[in-house]
């Protein structure tokens, strides 16, 4: 892999260069909580405080609410407009867990099915990763096959080595970005070694672990154990925090709004934690709380592996850190009994 570097004091200039051709998206906590928003072409203080965002970067592709079509009632029929979002963007500073999450959502919205709204934004976006140097105590990415300091899910990967960032080029798109600037330098052997050390140190810092071995089988064999799931779900309050802040949850609801003769069809986040989930088309098949909690766990760790060959939890820990009742998915996974079918065979 081709590796380059840049001095930290040149980052602002680099982002400014890119910001002329792309919308540069960076972490900010301007509005009180950390999220990814359009860069103001100036402030790079996030490099000092940023650990991870509260709102996951999925919001750049699946916004909390977006217009699918807008319409106007005419004398005969409707005049309908479909928004086009073709602007090119760069997400700078995405963490490896969240970058993996985008790859996971891509499977649903861009690979299996080409979702116009998601895919048009996704196709025009480059992901620039930033190695984690200070993970939260709720982070457990190493248990989800994510390395906090490495990523194959990005176009460029930045690693802090002190006064400089070492940059790995992972795609041609990333390479083209680096070619836009004359501040990119060659790396020395010492830089590469330093980056290696920093990466190893990041992995070391991740203390929270969960054993996901045989998880699909373990979940399959206890699927009908109502007592177990009732216990697991007991303290859940059925809010939408874990699903809305999860970097891989993508459920949505569609609503039409019309005032006078103007209206729009909106798509917005929905959550399988809600009792009203899927009430619009029919009924919620998961009326009881334990069924909804089971759904969330099984979707991440059983259905995803079976259908798409990957577990849909990247260990970002948001659902643990921000849960009002400290419902901890790692404790739930650990408490599941062994796969009975394996013992009997």
């Amino acid at each position: 892999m081709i590796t380059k570097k840049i001095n930290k004091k040149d980052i602002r200039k680099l982002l400014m260069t890119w910001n002329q051709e792309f919308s540069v998206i960076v972490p900010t906590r301007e509005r009180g909580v950390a999220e990814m928003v359009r860069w103001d072409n100036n402030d790079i203080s996030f490099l000092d405080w940023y650990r991870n965002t509260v709102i996951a970067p999925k919001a750049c592709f699946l916004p909390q609410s977006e217009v699918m079509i807008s319409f106007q009632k005419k004398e005969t029929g409707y005049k309908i407009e479909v928004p086009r979002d073709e602007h090119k963007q760069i997400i700078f500073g995405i963490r490896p867990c969240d970058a993996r999450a985008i790859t996971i959502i891509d499977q649903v919205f861009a690979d299996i099915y080409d979702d116009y709204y998601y895919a048009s934004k996704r196709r025009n976006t480059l992901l620039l990763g930033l190695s984690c140097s200070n993970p939260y105590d709720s982070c457990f990415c190493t248990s989800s096959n994510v390395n906090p300091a490495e990523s194959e899910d990005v176009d460029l990967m930045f690693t802090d080595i002190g006064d400089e960032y070492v940059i790995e080029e992972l795609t041609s798109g990333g390479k083209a970005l680096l070619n836009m600037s004359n501040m990119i330098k060659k790396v020395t052997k010492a830089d590469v070694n330093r980056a290696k050390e920093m990466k190893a140190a990041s992995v070391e810092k991740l203390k929270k672990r969960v054993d996901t071995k045989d998880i699909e089988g373990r979940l399959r064999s206890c699927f009908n154990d109502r007592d177990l799931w009732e216990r697991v779900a007991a303290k859940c309050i059925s809010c939408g925090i874990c699903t809305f802040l999860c970097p891989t949850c993508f459920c949505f609801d569609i609503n039409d709004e019309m005032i006078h003769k103007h209206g729009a069809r909106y798509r917005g986040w929905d959550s399988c934690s809600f009792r009203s989930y899927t009430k619009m088309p029919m009924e919620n098949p998961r009326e009881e709380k334990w069924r909804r909690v089971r759904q969330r766990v099984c979707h991440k760790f059983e259905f995803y592996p079976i259908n798409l060959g990957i577990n849909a939890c990247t260990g970002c820990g948001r659902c643990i850190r921000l849960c009002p009742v400290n419902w901890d998915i790692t404790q739930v996974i650990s408490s599941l009994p062994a796969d009975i079918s394996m013992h009997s065979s």
Partner: protein
Amino acid sequence: MEKELRQEAGKLLDDGTVDCIIGFAPGSLKFTTTPLIIEDVGELNNLIVNRFINNNLAKYLLEVTGRVGIIAKGCDSRSIVSLIQDKQITRQDIVILGIPCSGLIDLKKVEKLLAKERDEINDIVVVADKVSITAAGEKREVALSSVLFEHCLGCELQIPKEYDLLIQGPAAEICNYEVSRKHIKELKKMSPDQRWAYWREQFGHCIRCYACRQVCPACFCERCFVEESQPRWVSPVSQWQDNLIFQAIRNIHVAGRCTDCGECERVCPVNIPLRSLSKEMYDLVEEMFNYKTGMDVNAPSLMTAYELEEVEGLIR
């Protein structure tokens, strides 16, 4: 306090007085706790009391069946009483294990004070009216009142009034009504236009996760108005206008039921200062009706008790 609590809870489970105990256990992360619902005496050692027992456990009484023993701080006890007043739960089904409370620590305040996040803090120790906080090898001592939740500073019931068993322990004087309304005072200084702009901005952040509603014991509706589609009161699309209307109606619905436990604000993942709305409503209820929620289990519920002599013709 913990030892006595475990003993008493154990007795209740042992002699079959209750089917389960609802209390607090250590959380999986530093300075966190988690609700504990146990049927087995073997798990009693997990039962704890500390400065981080945030959740208003009264919420679980709406779900858990059978005879229930519940650990209750003053504020929780008020919510329990309010639920009894509203006939959502039956007094006979509940054994209240009251605990005195000297205020809970607001981690967001500690984080702000130290410019560090929760997991970067090593230790928080309360000694009398001081807290010593250690982070990154440095020890800092601050006044306890500077890191208590604002709703704790406005607490009107540090020792539960309604209980079956009161665990003995300290309840140091913590009240500071002025500070507990500090943010409301700032909002009131604004012009209506400024205030409107402020809330417009705040509700622009709302992600409609409904955590505020879900943690609130006063929100006990089987079906929330937000989920009604015929007629539709609020759009399910997250827009500041509808987000604000949702919260405004929620506040009106919990008027006379809100005990200022502060949970709505604590759990909000996007830090909307929701208590500034609920506390204002709480004070208005007192001012208009001379009524304090959850203080008297025999008092009629403010909003749902009617008499034949009511002035309002609508309900006669």
